[in-house]
């Protein structure tokens, strides 16, 4: 950031500023190093490959699958073979060992090329709330056992935190865990569990005592088929319909001590860690979709004529597209900055909340703008804009609602 403009700056002051900048590495060898906003050539190649892959492999029958709520296991497997699920995981577990920025770049490419937002959302849920916490908090045995399958597509992960009476106030959860010898026994009900109907592995949270709040919560990694764990009916929902969702019911679900994820009473930390990743990365696919929509709207506004001229010549149509462009560019900066902070191991809580808030709300607005620009056609299912709009709304709710993101930002500002 520059200081307010002054025209009375002395030569001595300039020398002083340059010397300071050199000390801080902003200027080296009398050359100003600009801030670099470009992806590396490797990241650009990966993003391009992701666009082509998603465009050619993931877009078949999405309208029909959306209508009938069909999850594509085939698409899931293709993504795993491309390297999506394993992108941020170490090579020793079958991942690609990529950092957050590279992963975000790939996800943006998938969202640009691919129209099955549900499938991409399911993959996001799997990566950020199952694989990533396992990588950070799992024991060597848990990592050996699960991470290779979570990378190569054999295993689908899910995460159960939300409950009927604990949503935004997640640490007021009531699902109980009691110790019986070295085993743990879980009882309770988790709702809104993305992937539950197809999941092989569940990261679940329970409390030893609801009075303890965050300090009472422990995380567990529990396999499908474990006695006492049951998934409910598949839920019908407004958008992201190709990602399936159900409740998870725990009735005297007994698991050995090896199912504990992280330390006893430190589940809130595990949950917080996975949310930080999710907030930072989950909307990268939406960013790609925003870019695709923008380009689509520009092309349409140039081609569609009314009153003898392209509709883009009408200022109110052009302004709508200008706003879409601004939202996309600002959203992009926020997401990549958050990725950069995470890559540098810097605290990213507030930035991730800003990215989550801004991108999700911008995505909804841009989806509505895209429909408006396409007129009546935009309202028709075949153009796929109405589905994108339905898909977008969930982004302001999952991983913490917009209101909760605002609270996090306000707390970061110590308000």
């Amino acid at each position: 950031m520059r200081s307010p403009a002054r025209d009375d700056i002395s030569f001595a002051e300039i020398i002083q500023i340059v010397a300071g900048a050199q000390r801080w590495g902003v200027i080296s060898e009398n050359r100003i190093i600009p801030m670099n906003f470009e992806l590396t050539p490797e990241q650009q190649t990966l993003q391009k490959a992701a666009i082509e892959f998603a465009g050619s492999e993931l877009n078949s029958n999405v309208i029909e699958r959306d209508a009938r709520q069909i999850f594509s296991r085939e698409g899931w497997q293709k993504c795993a073979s491309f390297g999506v699920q394993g992108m941020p995981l170490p090579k020793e577990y079958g991942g690609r060992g990529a950092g957050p920025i590279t992963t975000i770049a790939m996800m943006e490419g998938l969202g640009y090329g691919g129209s099955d937002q549900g499938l991409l959302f399911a993959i996001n849920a799997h990566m950020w709330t199952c694989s990533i916490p396992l990588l950070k908090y799992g024991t060597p045995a848990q990592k050996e056992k699960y991470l290779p399958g979570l990378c190569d597509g054999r295993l689908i992960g899910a995460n159960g935190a939300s409950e009927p009476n604990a949503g935004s106030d997640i640490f007021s959860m009531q699902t109980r865990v009691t110790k019986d010898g070295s085993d743990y026994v879980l009882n309770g009900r988790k709702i809104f569990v993305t992937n539950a109907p197809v999941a092989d592995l569940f990261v679940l949270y329970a409390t030893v005592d609801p009075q303890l709040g965050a300090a009472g919560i422990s995380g567990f990694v529990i396999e499908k088929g474990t006695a006492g764990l049951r998934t409910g009916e598949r839920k019908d929902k407004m958008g992201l319909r190709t990602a399936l969702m159900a409740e998870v019911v725990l009735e005297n679900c007994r698991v050995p001590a090896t199912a504990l994820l992280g330390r006893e009473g430190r589940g809130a930390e595990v949950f917080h860690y996975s949310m930080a990743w999710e907030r930072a990365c989950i909307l990268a696919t939406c960013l790609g979709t925003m870019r695709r929509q923008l380009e689509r709207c520009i092309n349409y506004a140039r081609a569609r004529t009314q009153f003898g001229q392209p509709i883009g010549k009408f200022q109110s149509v052009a302004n709508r597209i200008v706003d879409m462009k601004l939202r996309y560019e600002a959203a992009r900066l926020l997401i990549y900055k958050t990725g950069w902070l995470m890559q540098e191991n810097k605290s990213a809580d507030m930035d991730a909340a800003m990215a989550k808030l801004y991108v999700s709300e911008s995505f909804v607005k841009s989806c509505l703008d895209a429909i408006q620009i396409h007129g009546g056609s935009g309202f028709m299912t075949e153009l796929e804009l109405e589905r994108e709009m339905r898909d977008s709304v969930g982004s302001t709710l999952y991983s913490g609602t917009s209101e909760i993101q605002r609270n996090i930002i306000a707390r970061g500002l110590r308000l």
Partner: protein
Amino acid sequence: MDEPEIKAAVKTYILNEYLPGEDPAALTDTTELMTTGILDSIAVLKVVTFLESHFGITLEPHEAVVENLNTLSAIARLVMSKKA
């Protein structure tokens, strides 16, 4: 390590992590940390992790409560009792 040293170490940690730029004098031994929202529930867990690694102690879930963690004085007492 005695009580003033424990307080100083925890104070530095809290100032750096949760009150950057704040006047150190504003954080006294009796400033309420949890009940005023300086530390939210996740921050409390991070403080617990810091206490464990810095002072080589182990805390149980029922110990991460307001009575033990609301002020620098209470935290120092908790650490001292654990090290005793």
